[in-house]
Structures are given as C-alpha cells and as structure tokens.
C-alpha cells in the first residue's frame, strides 16, 4: 500500500490545523455561514437533513486493517456506531458534530486518511477497479497511476475552482469494474500492437440529470504522458466549460455540445504543445510509486483447493458463497472475496463499527492486511488463499457478513435518499430493502442470475440508476414519492444507459413492478445462461412495457 512520506504527512496535518482554526472561527462567530460553507465543503463536511455528514476519501478504494479500525473507532466515538460506503469508494458518517470534525480529521490523519476534495468543484477521489492488483484478467495494477493522479490533483491551485466537480476512474483490465465510461475521465490500461502498456482514454461520461457515455478520444497513451494528457483535458475544460449554469457545467456537456472531434483536437493540440514540459512521468518516480503496490508474497498453491471442493459438496450455502462472492485471482490457489454489505433486507453499504473491526481482523489474517471498497458498496478481501475460504466464511457468517449475493438481484446499489439526503426527492433505502426481501430466497436469486438493481432518490443519480440493468429513480410527484423504472443500463465495458419504461409507480407498487420486470425476463430468456442484460438487448423494451402497463 502507499505510505505517506514526510511531505504527505505534513500536508495533511497542516490542512487539519487549518480546518480546526476555521471551525473555531465559525463557532466563535468570526466567520458566518456564507463564508464558512465553502471551507467546510472543501474538507468533506456537508449539512444534510438531520445533521452534518462527513465524507472521507478512500483513494482508489484501498484500505489497510489499521485504517478500517480507525473508521470503526470514529464511528463509535463520534458517530452512531456505523458508516456508509458510497458508490465512489468513499465512506460517509451521517451524524458527526461540527465541533468534533477537526478531531475526526486528526484521527484520520494519524492513519494517512483525509476528507480533502470529497466535495466542491475540484478533482474528486480518484477511483479504481476494486479488484486491482489481484484480478486474473488484469494487464497491470492501475492504482499506482491513481495515486500519481491523487498527488498531482490534491490542492492543485489550477484546478481548485473548476466549472464543476471532476471525477476520474481507472481500470487495469478489459473487464470494466470501475464504471469508467460514466466518469469525466476514464483510463483503461491496454496493450498496443507493439506489446507496450498504456492507456485508452475516455472523456465526457457522467450520470446525473443529463446522463452521457464517455467517448474514447485516444486509443493509446504512453504511461509517461498520463499527467500531461490529464492536464490537457483539464485545461480545455477549465477554459471552455460553462460556468453560467451549474446544470450544464460538467465536461460531458462540453464534449456533447462541441462534439467529440473538436474536443479531441483541442486536447491533442494542448498536449502536443506541453507534452515534454514538467509533467512527463520520470521512470524512476513511477517505479518508486509502483513499489508501494507490489503484490503481496503469496505462496504457490494448487489451483484447486480440495478442502473447498469437499465443503462445497456438502454445504449448499458455502457453495453459493464461493460461486457468487469469490472471483479469480492472478495467483493460482487464491481468490478475491467480496464481502456483501447487502444482507437481505439490510441497508446497502452500511457497516457497523463491529463489522469494520471483524473485517479488519479477517483482512489481517487472510488477505495480507488489504481491504477494498467497491463502487457497488461492498467490501473486498483481495488476496485470500482458497484453502482459507472455509474458515473465513465461518467468521463472516458469524458476523452476518456472508450473504452470497454478489452481482445478484439483491446486491442493490442505493443512495442514502430522502432518509438522509438534503437533495433527495424520494426514499431509496426502504425500496432497496423491500426488493431485497422479495427476492431474498437464495434459490430464487440464483435462478434469476446476474442482475443489477440501482436506485437513486433524485435525478443526481448517486445510486447509478442510469447504468443499472434495472434502474429506479425516486421522484416527488405532487408531494408523493413516485418511482420511474429504466431498463438495460450497464456500467461495464458494454456501457449503456437505461431506457425509461413509462410512467412511475407509487411506493406501494414499485416492488411488484420490479417483480413483473424480473418475471418477464424469466419468460423471454432463451435459457438460463442468457442473463438479464443479454436478454433485454435481444428483445428490447416492448415485452417489459406490455407486462408493466398492458398492451396499448
């Protein structure tokens, strides 16, 4: 893992001291709310419906056990004993007092964490494939590049007041687990015809009220040019992005309005003019950062585990867990374990302090001290020996953390919605809970197969509804919650935006409507291996519309 050097530590400590002074001045009245609000937002402190909310960055979704224990400590000491993992690999506390926030940030700094740039019109937490450094299908670990981008973008004065927020995601594999095509910039590590590794560059994706899929503006960018090219994109955006209308201020709108060819030309021209200036990555510096992400010393093991096979043969629940929640590791005899934060009927992404501590212990024992946060709001142990799966499973099950539903209909992404969020127009979590309960029987969820249900409580789309195979958008219709359904969205390398089925459904109707959609899929699929998205792309929306609204 990356470790702070003296510069990093001093930088974060100085920032905590600065914010402590700002909070003191706010509480004493030396600053009024108008003056203070942008300062607190720059430190991740929002004011939501019931309380302040603190959003903490988990850079590229990577946590150590020590860091996770600190989050558990903060949850207990300063909050209400739990935290919420978000769709941008962050952690949110829902109840901190403003007066405590400097102490919380100080605690975070002690484990090399912070909340800088988790809000505001700046470059936000850089996210990455949660299987990075472990996935069998990976070309190269994208996290060193994410770390380089993080260092370069942190408090970068040129990009502290962009037209709007700016989100970057990276993946090291052809399989996109980081939703790069719905980010402002998406970088995918690729190999060119000469066998060199570099980046394919995607620009102008995003969700929100105007969902747009990113355009691939460059097929191959040499690694050394990562910052120079990112800088070129940001310079064009900073100059030409709209500042007159916050709803048209994201780079996706600029790309959409000017056209991808014009943007590509502008970026390439700026890149060509400045390529060989100070932002070219020196090989030695790249190697220094990469050394922090060196793979753990995993012992050589047989590709198959006899003890796992034996247990699977006699324990159906364990077999389901291995089938759903264990992904292939690049080192034979190891697996990547998804710890679902979606217990049946639970709150997607919530983890109690006890959960965090158990997971920290398990990461230390079984996963070389590493934990990942996924944008699907789950946690991941990336380096587990297959032979350890039975013991790991037992301990997860004892804590209620062994739900075997990764990628199934009950693995629902949901934003906090109107239960917490000041922007929301409808509740998300109770809908997620009821859908989870409806499809909670493991046999039924297994029969349905791979299916993502994503729920947002307003058009800002934090719950990624546009890219759910089934998306649900909660709106306020004359004072009553109403839920629209979109179908056919995907956040992976086949990225697509869901299509609206028609008029919305009431809170009483929405779960039945989702069941109608699922039942329709089961009827139209050619065989069990044709998953929801494949079947939808083959038959289109009509059979689903007819099932939901009748034939017109």
């Amino acid at each position, binding site marked *: 893992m990356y470790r702070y050097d003296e510069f990093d530590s001093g930088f974060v400590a100085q920032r905590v001291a600065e914010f402590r002074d700002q909070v003191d001045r706010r509480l004493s009245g030396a600053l009024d709310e108008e003056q203070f609000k942008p300062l607190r937002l720059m430190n991740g402190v929002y*004011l939501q419906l019931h309380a302040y909310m603190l959003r903490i960055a988990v850079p590229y979704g990577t946590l150590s056990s020590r860091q996770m224990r600190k989050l558990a400590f903060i949850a207990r000491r300063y909050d209400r004993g739990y935290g919420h993992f978000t769709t941008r690999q962050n952690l949110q506390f829902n109840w901190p007092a403003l*007066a405590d926030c400097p102490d919380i940030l100080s605690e975070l700094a002690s484990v090399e964490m912070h909340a800088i740039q988790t809000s505001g019109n700046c470059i936000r937490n850089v996210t990455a494939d949660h299987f990075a450094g472990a996935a069998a299908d990976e070309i190269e670990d994208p996290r060193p590049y994410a770390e380089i981008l993080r260092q370069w973008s942190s408090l970068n004065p040129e990009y502290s007041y962009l037209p709007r927020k700016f989100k970057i995601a990276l993946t090291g594999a052809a399989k996109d687990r980081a939703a790069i095509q719905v980010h402002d910039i998406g970088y995918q590590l690729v190999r060119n015809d000469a066998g060199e590794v570099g980046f394919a560059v995607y620009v102008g994706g995003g969700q929100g009220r105007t969902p747009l899929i990113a355009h691939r503006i460059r097929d191959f960018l040499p690694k050394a040019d990562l910052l120079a090219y990112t800088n070129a994109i940001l310079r064009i955006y900073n100059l030409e992005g709209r500042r007159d209308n916050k709803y048209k201020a994201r780079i996706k709108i600029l790309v959409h309005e000017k056209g991808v060819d014009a943007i590509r030309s502008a970026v390439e021209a700026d890149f060509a003019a400045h390529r060989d200036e100070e932002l070219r990555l020196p090989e030695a510096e790249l190697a220094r950062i990469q050394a922090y992400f060196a793979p753990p010393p995993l012992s050589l093991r047989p590709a198959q585990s006899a003890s796992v096979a034996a247990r699977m043969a006699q324990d159906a629940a364990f077999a389901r867990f291995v089938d759903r929640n264990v992904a292939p590791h690049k080192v034979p005899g190891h697996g990547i374990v998804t710890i679902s934060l979606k217990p049946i009927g639970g709150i997607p992404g919530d983890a109690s302090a006890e959960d965090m501590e158990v997971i920290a212990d398990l990461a230390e024992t079984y996963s070389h001290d590493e934990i990942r946060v996924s944008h699907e709001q789950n946690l991941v142990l990336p380096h587990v020996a297959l032979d350890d799966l039975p013991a790991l499973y037992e301990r997860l099950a004892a804590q209620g953390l062994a739900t075997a539903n990764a990628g199934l209909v009950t693995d629902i992404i949901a934003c906090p919605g109107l239960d917490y969020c000041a922007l929301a127009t409808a509740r998300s979590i109770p809908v997620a809970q009821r859908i989870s309960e409806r499809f909670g029987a493991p046999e039924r969820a297994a029969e349905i197969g791979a299916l993502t249900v994503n729920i947002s409580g307003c058009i800002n789309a934090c719950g990624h509804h546009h890219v759910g195979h089934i998306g649900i958008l909660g709106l306020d219709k004359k004072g009553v919650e109403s839920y629209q359904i979109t179908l056919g969205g995907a956040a992976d390398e086949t990225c697509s935006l869901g299509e609206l089925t028609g008029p919305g459904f009431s809170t009483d109707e929405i779960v039945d409507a989702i069941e109608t959609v699922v039942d329709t899929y089961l009827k139209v699929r050619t065989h069990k291996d044709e998953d929801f998205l494949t079947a939808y792309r083959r038959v289109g929306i009509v059979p689903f519309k007819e099932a939901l609204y009748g034939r017109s």
Partner: protein
Amino acid sequence: MTKVITANRLTDGKVVYIAPGEGWVEAIAEARLFEGDTEAEAAMASARAYVKRNVVVDPFLVEVAVSAEGPKAQTLRNAIRAAGPTIAYHGRGVTEKI
C-alpha cells in the same frame, strides 16, 4: 395554516425548532406554533437573529397539521426531518410510520 420554524443547530447540525419561550427545542412536539403568515414572518426575523448569533443555520417555515398527537409536518421531507430516518439503521429501531 399552522406553521413551525425549524433550522439546524450550528454546533452539531441537529434539527431544532423555535420553542414557545426563548431558544430552540429538538422535538417538533415542543415547537412553538404560529398561526397565520404575519406571526410566522415576524418569528422568522427572530430566527434570522439566531443565525446572526451563530446558534442555528438555514431556518425555514414548516407547515404542520395539529392534532391531539401534536404538530405533524405536512411534507414527507419535513416529516423525515422531524422524526429521523424511516429505516432501522444500526442500533436503532424503525421510526413510527410517517
């Protein structure tokens, strides 16, 4: 329409309501009720004075229906603000049905 005045307390962000006497209370049941727009607007001036004194932030008026059970906010958003999340989050039961 009867109204109450709500805000978030500066120090901890908690939802508070203008009390019948001085200051603010956390329970909407204990909030001061304002009948008619004139009285409510006059009270908003007092709420803004609390903002200036750095006691609360973002005060606003909330329409309520008053029954034997006390004042009840008329929009879902304000009802959730008054009662807390409608879900059984960690360590807490479900709020009474809103």
